């Protein structure tokens, strides 16, 4: 059978003419990439120069029957704070939801934990199969819009992840339906998010992300206000770096601290850009160890960056606070925030462990969660203990700076709770 809508002698010239017209117009209308400077989050200290040193910690999550992880926090336009994290029976389970809670900075209290989005709702909104949810990151744009990015997997493990987003224009009270970012040409898989978003002067969002399929490397996405990816640059390639946490230093400069996932000496990696994220330096190792665990950084002042990490070669039994210079070549340990009672992080016998973690639990929180302690102790075995004994784990830190002199740090506390720590500059300065 043959179709002859057009006489064959006209077919080629007509098609050639159409080709020329369509591609000429497409070329003319193609998106023009525009470089846009960063919005610089300038630290304005000394608003309250005589403020007493302040340090307070409490738990954000209140569910003890869940594995909770990968928390992030933002300051909402109203001045309240909102934290998001994932929780479920275990990491990667189908029952994992993305939770949120609000923090009142006047009352210093966290509100109720709410399900922000679950797997079934994500699946229906995207019209595609979703097996599990993971890492959520929340950020507030300069225009007041609040963005939540979170990971979902349709097929396979975390290497099969894609990034979804939701936005809120009313201070995080109601949210748009989830949509998916298009980030890779390979079935749109293997882009994950963990680091804080940054913002450009043209209204676009800069999102540090990472790739995990066949390789592990960090990337930088630029996303417009309609949620379309308009550029993607690679910070590195290969198989040994991920989870960039980015700090903007000037309108064109930024640095990223990277989790190291390779062999050999395990050190924090650093990559820099002087082209508003369009080009990144080859990552270099710093003197500080990193046990293949997530880390977080925020600008402290014009010359220094505050970094929170597990400063260990292996395991995650200590969480420390460092100050580093602008190019992260010089680091100074300021304070160990959390630490296993065993300085080498060795297994602790069960009979001693309950007393030790009970003490840490009580010290970690104001009075609001003290009623949970017995229930918490009863559930310890399956999360923190193995045949050799029990251990302490503090990981996945995420830090932001308030408009004032305050810092808000949030992290996973012994696989069981999301812990929030608030401190001011004067508290930190006393440990210099």
């Amino acid at each position, binding site marked *: *059978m043959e179709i002859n809508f057009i006489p064959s002698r006209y*077919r*080629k010239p007509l*098609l*050639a003419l*159409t*080709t*020329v017209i*369509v*591609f000429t*117009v*497409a*070329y003319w*209308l*193609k*998106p*023009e*990439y525009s470089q846009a400077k960063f919005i610089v989050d300038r630290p304005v200290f000394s608003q309250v120069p005589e403020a007493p040193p302040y340090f307070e910690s409490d738990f954000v999550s209140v569910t003890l029957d869940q594995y909770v992880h990968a928390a992030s926090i933002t300051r909402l336009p109203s001045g309240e704070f909102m934290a998001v994290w994932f929780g479920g029976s275990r990491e990667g389970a189908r029952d994992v939801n993305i939770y949120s809670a609000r923090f009142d900075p006047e009352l210093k209290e966290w509100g109720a934990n709410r399900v922000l989005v679950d797997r*079934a709702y994500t*699946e*229906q909104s995207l*019209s*595609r*199969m*979703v097996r599990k949810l993971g890492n959520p990151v929340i950020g507030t744009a300069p225009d007041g819009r609040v963005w939540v990015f979170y990971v979902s997997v*349709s*097929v396979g493990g975390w290497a099969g992840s*894609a990034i979804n987003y939701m936005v809120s224009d009313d201070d995080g009270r109601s949210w748009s339906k989830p*949509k*998916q970012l*298009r980030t*890779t*040409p*390979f*079935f*749109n*898989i293997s882009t994950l998010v963990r680091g804080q978003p940054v913002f450009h002067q043209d209204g676009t969002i800069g999102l540090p992300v990472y*790739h995990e*399929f*066949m*390789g*592990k*490397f960090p990337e930088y996405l630029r996303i417009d206000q309609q949620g*379309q*990816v*308009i*550029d*993607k*640059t*690679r910070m*590195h*390639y*290969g*198989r040994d770096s991920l989870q960039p946490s980015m700090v903007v230093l000037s309108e064109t400069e930024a640095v990223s601290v990277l989790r190291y996932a390779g062999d050999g000496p395990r050190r924090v990696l650093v990559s820099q850009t002087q082209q508003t994220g369009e080009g990144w330096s080859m990552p270099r190792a710093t003197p500080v160890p990193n046990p293949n665990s997530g880390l977080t950084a925020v600008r402290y002042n014009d010359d220094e960056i505050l970094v929170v990490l597990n400063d260990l070669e292996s395991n995650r039994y200590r969480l420390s606070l460092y100050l580093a210079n602008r190019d992260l070549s010089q680091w100074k340990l300021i304070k160990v925030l959390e630490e296993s009672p065993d300085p080498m992080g060795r297994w602790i016998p069960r009979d001693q462990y309950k007393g030790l973690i009970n003490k840490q639990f009580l010290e970690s929180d104001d009075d609001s969660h003290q009623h949970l302690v017995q229930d918490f102790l009863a559930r310890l075995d399956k999360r923190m203990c193995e045949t050799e004994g029990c251990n302490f784990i503090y990981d996945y830190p995420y830090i932001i700076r308030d408009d004032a002199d305050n810092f808000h740090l949030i992290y996973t506390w012994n696989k069981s709770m999301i812990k929030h720590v608030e401190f001011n500059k004067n508290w930190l300065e006393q440990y210099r």
Partner: protein
Amino acid sequence: MNPSLLCAAFTFAAFFYLLLPLGRLALGGRLAVFTALFALSFVPHDGLALAGYLRGVFGGELAIPTLVLLVWGCLRQTFAWTVTEGVQRMAPLCFFAVLGLVLYPATLGLSSLDPYRFGFEPGLLLLVSAAGALAFCFLGNCVASLTLVLTGLAFMLGIKNSQNYWDYLIDPLLFVYSLVVVLRWLSGEVWAWFRAARRPVLVTSEA
């Protein structure tokens, strides 16, 4: 109805329609099979249409040439059209195989250069596509030429959830299909040449 789901439903129906051995089924029967598969793609399982499962596996919408290839395949299957063999058919498949070889290994992290980024500023890719479309046109493969024109048109209209031209131009299914067909064709050509070269030449002498 959600256009993405409609597209997924067509992909679902076309995919299984092309895999089914339809034998001597009459034209009406073939159309009925396709319609049934299309309807089946909307049947919900656990709250999600079956097409949504395939969409999850494929990571969203397929590239425009893949969709055209599926439409073309379904028309062939239905109306028993014959396929042109040789360079005319192989040229576009070579084009997509080479594009895939440029794109996928590097984009998965094998080099510091990420060619996917060129798709956000697609001037060069549009020129390559235009050259390909004109070449296929003059080679006589109007379907391939029209496919690239449709791809350019779709990008111009922004019908996909992407501002990257690569997402319109190619996907892993098209790449793997093109690569397999081209390699099979090339191996056949090489084998034929090898056999011809080894065949003894009969020399006839004039009396």
